[in-house]
């Protein structure tokens, strides 16, 4: 196996996630796209760890995974709060900072 096949797969996933963040109209789907990007990062870390024959890649991927779980928990709480106040989960409706 060459290293680049994993890195290119993860680059593809990252770009798909970036498209989702820009083009989706439901906040939960935006969070799902962010999860795609974080998975891409994890694949990178683990592939580099395997190519360097070190367990550190797994450890960093573990940290990323923990932070992803925390992010989804807090993110969904914020989405719920926004939905309760605005009756909408569309990020485009959050335009109250415009004068």
């Amino acid at each position, binding site marked *: 196996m060459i290293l680049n096949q994993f890195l290119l797969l993860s680059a593809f996933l990252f770009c798909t996630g970036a498209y*989702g963040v820009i083009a989706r109209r439901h906040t939960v789907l935006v969070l799902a796209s962010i999860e795609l990007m974080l998975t891409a990062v994890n694949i990178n870390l683990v592939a580099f760890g395997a190519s360097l024959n070190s367990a550190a890649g797994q450890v960093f991927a573990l940290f990323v995974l923990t932070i992803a779980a925390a992010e989804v928990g807090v993110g969904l709480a914020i989405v719920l709060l926004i939905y309760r106040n605005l009756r909408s989960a569309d990020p485009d409706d959050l335009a109250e900072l415009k004068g």
Partner: protein
Amino acid sequence: MVAQNVFFWIFAVAMAIGAIRVVTTDNIVHAALWLVVVLGGGAAQFLLLGQEFIAWVQVIVYIGAVIVLFLFGIMLTHAPMQAHETLGNNLRAVGLAVSVLLAGTLAWVLVDQFGNDKIHLVAPVRTAEVGDVVFRSYLVPFEVVGVLLLAALIGAVVLARRD
């Protein structure tokens, strides 16, 4: 090595299809379920790389917990469960341009830098080695991430409770 490459491509194609469906499908529940395909494919890639611990953590934490959280979020925001054509906004062209440019740049840099570098797998990394590395070299970050998780837990409860 040949078998590993065959399985890599099988999982890679499944992950690519799943990722594209996550960001294009009109049904929000299907998007969450396609995300399961991508994350499960990621766990399979970790197994191919001989990194067993992170593969099973990915299955348990992501597929077991995060997807369930997503489904709860979909349910609690009363999202339309049927196909719904307005899940994409009018920034599709911009998003496509950004992601194609980003993919092109990343692919160019990666091919330029790493070319045909091989991964020489000696043996799967045992979970005991991961534990050693966590509790020897990365003890402080590990504890910090634990505190962060506690803070996120309390923060989520404070944000979401009705008062």
